[in-house]
């Protein structure tokens, strides 16, 4: 390791270590960056190998749509790559990465509520005879209700029931206090109850 975790607040220290490896044709800085990059790349690939699928699934649980989830995951890995020096404890890399992922998912959800999202697929289907009373199943109702939760509530619900994380684990991944996580979960469930009970569109007719 050349710069390692201490790079964060002290480049000079890195350069001292790097100086032992100085070779022809490269400046110290260039050499340091090259070696640093290789090492970081190897660690990054180990992370992506292990975490890509779970990350994608978690993102799907949080943001819903596949394309959005892909974007969130990609954003998260790009952020992770760029923010690698902020990983202070390699043993906690998964929580560190999950936190970045949760953040990118949250940003996705937020930007979805303030900007429009243009969907690429509008598929036309020929209406099937008899399809008009296709049962709206529990899943759809729950999905609609989840979609109506606000970003922060949706986030904790997905982490709790998809990720099966404990309150403390959710707190570590969201940067919230455990008490806040608990109360958000409580409120989210209450809101879901209300949404599921309310079968109308919410219009005061």
């Amino acid at each position, binding site marked *: 390791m050349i710069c390692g975790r201490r790079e964060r607040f002290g*480049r000079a220290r890195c350069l001292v270590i790097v100086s032992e490896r100085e070779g022809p044709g490269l400046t110290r800085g260039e050499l340091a960056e090259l070696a640093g990059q290789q090492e970081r790349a190897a660690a990054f690939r180990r992370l992506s190998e292990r975490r*890509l699928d779970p990350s*994608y699934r978690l993102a799907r649980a949080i943001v819903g749509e596949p394309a959005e989830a892909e974007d969130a995951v990609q954003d998260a*890995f790009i952020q992770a790559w760029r923010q690698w020096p902020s990983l202070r404890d390699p043993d906690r890399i998964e929580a560190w990465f999950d936190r970045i992922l949760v953040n990118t998912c949250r940003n996705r959800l937020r930007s979805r509520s303030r900007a*429009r999202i243009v969907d690429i697929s*509008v598929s036309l289907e020929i209406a099937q005879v008899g399809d008009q009373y296709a049962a709206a199943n529990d899943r*759809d109702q729950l999905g609609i209700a989840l979609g109506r939760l606000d970003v922060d509530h949706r986030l904790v619900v997905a982490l709790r029931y998809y990720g099966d994380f404990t309150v403390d684990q959710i707190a570590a991944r969201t940067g919230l206090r455990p008490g806040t996580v608990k109360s958000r979960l409580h409120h989210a469930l209450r809101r*879901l109850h209300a949404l599921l009970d309310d079968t109308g569109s919410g*219009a005061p007719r």
Partner: protein
Amino acid sequence: MTDQRLEGMLEQRLSAYFAPRADEVAPATLRATIDAIPDRFPIRRGWFATLRSRPLLVFATIALLLALAIGAAFLAGGRPPRPLLPLPPAVIQPGLTDPPPPQLPLRMGLIAFDTGGDIIVAGPDGSNRHAITSGPATDFGAQFSPDGTKIAYWSQAPGDASQSDPKLASTSLIVMNADGSRPRVLTGGIVYPTWAGPRWSSDGQYLAYSEDAPSGTGSEIVVVEIDTATRHVVGAGTEAHWAPADPTLAYVGSGLMSLVAADGSADHVIARGVSESRRDTVRWSPDGARLAYLTTDCCGIPDTMVVDRDGTNVHPITDSTGTEAFGGWSSDGRQTVLLRSQPDGTSLVLVADADGRNARSLSVTGATGEASWSPNGLRLLIGTEGGLLIVDPAGVEPTIRIAADAPLGVSWQPVGPRTAVVTPSTAPASTPGTRRATSGFVVPFSFDAALLPWVTSERYGQGPSGERAYGVSSVDGVGIAAYADPSLFADPCYPSKGFAETGSTPAELAAVLAHTPGLEVGATTPVSVGGFSGLRVEFRSVTDPASCEQPHRLRVLETEPGVDEIYEWAGAAASTTSDEMRRDALPSGVIASRWLIIDVRGTRLVLEAWSNYAVSSPKSPIGGLDELEQTLDSIAFD
């Protein structure tokens, strides 16, 4: 059932809901993209990295904030007024003694809707949304006037709106300019009006609606004459719609559909067995010759019937398959939209021929039962649980989603005749590959009040000589096209030239151009395309040699998790930013390109930030802000 038990059941449902996702894996394209990140994003130590030391970071943040404040002050004082969008928010101030002069918004096919108790106006693609009412009153049911210059809506005062039943709240009818200025209360004390909003007569002289009769004996149809703010009751009923071209009102009451003149005369019944649902169920055909309505029925399944204006020729438009609502005919009368109720309370949205045949389902989930055609009949606006959808029934253009909280009224601003043309320019051919994946096109001005707010698709196309063309088309059929020879991109002053074809009138164009310095307009010639007349306007941007010597640069400085991108503009003043992602199917059919749209001092830059997943595309398979930054380092924008 106890709360605890209910909670347990919900938890079980949630676990089941999320459970099936456990076997999902990330798409291979995403995996390839992620794997390429270390190669595509080399660790570079820009000056920003030196700010890792905390004191410097604090200092830099303060400096940036200062620069922003100075920049904002400069912009506020030194810039000419912006074009008509974004419009200023308005607050209803009864007794306003000196109302501001009316700003006439251009007829650009805006949409108006309500969310959170305020009226929102947005471009027809949902962009540039801004509230034109604010304050504690609950405002809803916005409807554009036929000439597009005014909006009528309902307003419930805070005390009333907070009552448990909004049906009992006292509601006022307000008309204001479409930019939110000059609100005027026409009448108050209305109880339980038609939620979707008051209806304008085609001549813009009257508004009609239903309200609960003061006697408590059902509801009555009220017509308000706008100039004099006089109201009179023309009949008993729950729903009223003006004919498309004359001040005749169709209304429904006691199972009858009647026509009546605006003054209450010539009242006569034209159909019986009409369902009364207080929903928007009666529709005039575009030519005003027929009306569609829902029947009361024997078995809980209403039919949509059509009757000629004189009460003859009654026939069903649907085949008793359970259509609950009729969204109306397209403007050419050839297509209809049907809303079929589903057990979950939402509707299946069908587009069919005018006779109800050839129904095709639009894959819209959670439709809540409101749908209407855009004025040009090219798009459908559909209300859903999650907000509004603008759908191209032909399935070509992407669906646009507009977040909104169960709007009660949705209205398209009528548009004048406009053209939609994207024609390649005759600019010289470019050298392939010289611009990599990243390119940009400055849109320093706007025709039709704002160019990009209603852009729905941009395409890079190939002109007849192989040049790269940048074309733009809008959702309401208004077309605008701008082309640039890519070799111009290398010019430090980044001039742009091209032409636009627009349905705006010369006066409207002049109004816009007055707000767009830096634009030189060349020849203007009348054009006629697709039956619409318009103008073809040639333009080029005027570059200032002084600014070329010290060009303004836009640089993407850094991103942090959870922090929006930070930009540098003109050395110091950071711009306001907004990123909107767009997706377009590439010619290779593979997936998507991704755009970054940046507001810089009110000018919107469109930058192709990266094109993802384009496996077989000649474009770079992954790029990003780094690439953008590298490119922008060598290009000046102004």
